């Protein structure tokens, strides 16, 4: 196919990113904003940098996380992006039941993050250990190792659900930032 035909087809086909339908749940936003308020933390405005940690996932949650980032859901248009180091991550996003072999890595990453150190547990395993609860090799959900701010359940949670959760976190953080700056 020539470059011109490809270009022409792209123009005719239009964008593949879908309109934003996954709305942040108002009650979740209010509860998260309350958490930030109670902790005396400033919000971060309309942008979040996420560090993902696979703490013992089967890889199913990662498939859906990649879907959230890619064209159809396009996470970055909301100002949320994945980064490669805890040193400039606002959010720690944990997938998987926390394996004993990953506890230290998870603790180190959390310690290296700047405040306010938000933590999101994605998937039933990260919520409470899921089907792996009680194994000699896992401690349970993400909350057994780091303080969790938001739980997104599902095995794995569908992209819309992950997107709605992360938007709620962004919304709460932005609301808090506005409240702090207007004081």
């Amino acid at each position, binding site marked *: 196919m020539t470059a011109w035909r490809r270009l022409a087809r792209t123009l005719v086909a239009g964008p593949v990113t879908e309109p934003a339908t996954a709305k942040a749940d108002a009650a979740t936003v209010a509860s998260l904003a309350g958490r930030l308020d109670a902790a005396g933390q400033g919000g971060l405005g309309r942008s979040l940098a996420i560090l993902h940690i696979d703490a013992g996932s089967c*890889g199913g949650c990662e498939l859906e996380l990649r879907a959230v980032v890619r064209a159809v859901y396009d996470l970055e248009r909301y100002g949320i992006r994945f980064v*490669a180091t805890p040193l400039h991550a606002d959010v720690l996003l944990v997938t998987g039941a926390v394996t004993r072999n990953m506890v230290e890595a998870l603790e180190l990453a959390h310690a290296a993050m700047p405040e306010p150190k938000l933590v999101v547990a994605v998937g039933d395993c990260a919520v409470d250990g899921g089907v792996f609860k009680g194994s000699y090799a896992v401690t349970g959900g993400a909350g057994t190792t780091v303080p969790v701010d938001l739980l997104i359940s599902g095995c794995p949670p569908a992209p819309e659900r992950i997107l709605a959760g992360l938007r709620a976190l962004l919304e709460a953080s932005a609301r808090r930032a506005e409240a702090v700056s207007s004081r």
Partner: protein
Amino acid sequence: MMRPRQVLSREEWTAMAGRPEPPLLALWADTREVHALLRDEEVPLLVSTAVEAGGYPALSPVRPSAARFERMVHDLWGHQAAGGIDARPWLDHGRWALSAPMAQRPGAAAKAGTPEFQFDDDVDQVPLGPVLGGIQPASHLRLGVRGDRVVRLEARLGYTHRGCLTLIRGKSPRAAARFAARLAGEATVAHALAFARAAEDALNCDVPPRALAWRDVMLEVERAATLLDVAASVAEAAGLDGVATRFAWHGEAVRRAADAAFGHRLMMDCVVPGGIAADAASGGGAAIDRALVALAAELPALAMPGLAGHAQAAAARRLPAIEGAVHLARGLLATLPEGPVSAALPVASGEGLGFASAPGGPVWHWLRLDHGQIASVFMCDPAWAGFQALEVAMAGAPAEDLALVRASFGLSSAGADL
């Protein structure tokens, strides 16, 4: 499919261990024996030998790919591979409250510590992981670098070890299928299918034709969706964002069609021993067919120019594999038999082996049932071979190629971490 398991005497096992043929597919154990799955003339051959004085003759001196299996067998059951080429721990990082968790009498906890990597003195070691950034499975890659070249790469896994085999032991095949389906998410159908086939082989259970057809449809739909995810990752790593977008769009369309048909985007827990969990929703087959037709129409135009070496070779294999999956699934959908979609499993004893072709390679499951309960089990994922292939591919390669080569292998550590 399978010849009966052969129990070898110590002499017979030692003779087998001394020859490179037939090649090894997997090695595992239970409390009394070690089992080796060999590929003999394209037919799997399962051989065992009794563990004596806590050990068995190692296979790794002649079959180096056995080394990590031997380390896993030691960490889970405590059996020593006598004469093995690598005695370092593998799954046991010294963080569990016990050692040899699957042994009759587990031992005291092992000492925590970083494993020793053996590199020449003039090589710089670069540690990567287990937290790699982006959206990646947990694994540690140790690069031995001289200048901008990778002299050697060594993968260290076990970070996502959840104790799946222990959780399965003592359960019925139906209850245990949930764990098989969560060994490796990108191959959940393949693992559930291999597990179901092993259970059905053990119990001589016949599965209704309609369930057999739906299972194969699910397997091919999973292959298409997972390989599209890998292709999108490769295109992203190569900077081909336009092509990556198209792979991602089709991947999403296939996942949604799977959701419409089976009620789950990954089709997790849809394959169960004895058949499938439920018949597809009405219109589900048509939804899958539509997604596959659209994919097949655009696939020939989704070339990835500028790829070289292993990434190019992997892409050249992968796109025909997606086409093949589309072709197979559409053929099955056009000729779906009518009838029930599951059979009751008898409560009995027996042994069985099950195979399925996962997106990343072959998946093997073996289990032994004792009056309807699983007494012993092993599940082999292509990640065992995949990480070794990554090590071979990166030896001598420029360090900057790592992200692309890694993406082209589509590796997930969970399947090998158990």
